[in-house]
């Protein structure tokens, strides 16, 4: 507690508490929160909400449910941060919680075959979809082709087996190292590499016909 107390924020040095928190690394923000600075938790939420949302969404394919699960992640973080081993990375811990929740969601969904990944994705309204491939200078047929390609990509990710998809998303979309993925997924390094290699090849095989 002494070390925590030492790292508490002193708000009289020009910058606001939020600015100071923004300048800190994760470990320091966690320490500040444990030292009683409630605003540190908001900083953690701000840092990780989009990252975790993307990860969970790409894993389960349902945006609304993904938001619920990410909120659950933050509630668990809030409740159990005092038990977090601060010798490890906060991001790995947060992703591990998210990964477990996503896995549970998929497991529950598999017990109810009426709700499938593709079904959820197809029910998603066009207006809700990100328009990353859109370009106002493009012709309508180009726009259609690009949107179609994006759908193909998302569906191809969804077609990967769950444990391959998890590793694939963590690596290719979240940019995690092999070691971090091993820790998040609770697998050894060899398994992570093997799964990632297979996932890459499977994904390439699925999207290849659309890239010609």
């Amino acid at each position, binding site marked *: 507690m002494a070390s925590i107390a030492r790292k508490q924020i002193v708000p009289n040095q020009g910058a606001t508490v939020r600015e100071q928190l923004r300048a800190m690394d994760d470990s320091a923000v966690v320490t500040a929160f444990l030292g009683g600075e409630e605003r540190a938790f908001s900083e953690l*939420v701000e840092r990780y909400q989009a990252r975790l949302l993307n990860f969970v969404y790409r894993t389960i394919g349902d945006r609304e449910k993904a*938001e619920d699960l990410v909120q659950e992640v933050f*509630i668990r973080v809030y409740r159990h941060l005092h038990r977090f081993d601060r010798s490890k990375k906060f991001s790995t811990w947060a992703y591990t919680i998210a990964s477990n929740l996503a896995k549970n969601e998929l497991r529950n969904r598999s017990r109810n075959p009426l709700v499938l990944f593709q079904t959820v994705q197809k029910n998603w309204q066009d207006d809700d979809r*990100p328009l990353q491939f859109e370009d106002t200078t493009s012709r309508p047929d180009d726009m259609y082709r690009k949107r179609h390609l994006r759908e193909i990509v998302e569906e191809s990710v969804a077609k990967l087996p769950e444990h391959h998809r998890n590793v694939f998303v963590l690596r*290719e979309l979240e940019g995690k190292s092999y070691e971090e993925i091993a820790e998040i997924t609770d697998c050894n390094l060899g398994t992570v590499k093997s799964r990632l290699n297979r996932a890459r*090849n499977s994904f390439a095989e699925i999207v*290849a016909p659309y890239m010609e």
Partner: protein
Amino acid sequence: MEGAGTSFHPMGTGNRTLNNPQMDCREFRNKHLSYVDDTLPGVELVGMQLHLTECVSCARQDATVRRSLMLIRSLQRIEPSPGFSERLAKKLREAKALDAASKPLVRPRKFAAAVAATSVVMLGYIALSLRQVDTPRDIMLPPVVATLPESVTAPMMSPAPAMVASVPAGLPIWTAALFAEQVPIHFVSADLTLVNSNR
């Protein structure tokens, strides 16, 4: 990756040097992950590049994987919906309220002390109860009615000590058995009268 490559070099990995960095399709496939992530050591990197120039199948596969990865990495990231923060704040308030409600009214140390004191009292009470049960108060024995006077057993005849003494004295067993036959045997009858009989 599954298709057979067109180039095969029987040389194993162990023989690879900067002057001779060739590899076969299987090895290429096994190392492709590290090759794409650019984590291969120099010698193997050269071997992979050389293999790509020689094997059309592997070169095609390499290009497909790289292009597909560009595609997936260019997917736009989604952002939380506008009400995300408010909903999270509400859930956190609920969680805090729940935690506060489930907290014990007394502090853990005080609670532990109270439990210990209660345990001591309980154990004392149990021990006292057991002691009271075990302690005999007034033992009421049934009255004894003597029906016959105690009879005096006849003293042993002279051969008996001789038989007893024979074994420690090292005498042969058969002599002891011989003496034993002469020892008077006393039987007690059912009506508690002493009977003497010699065999």
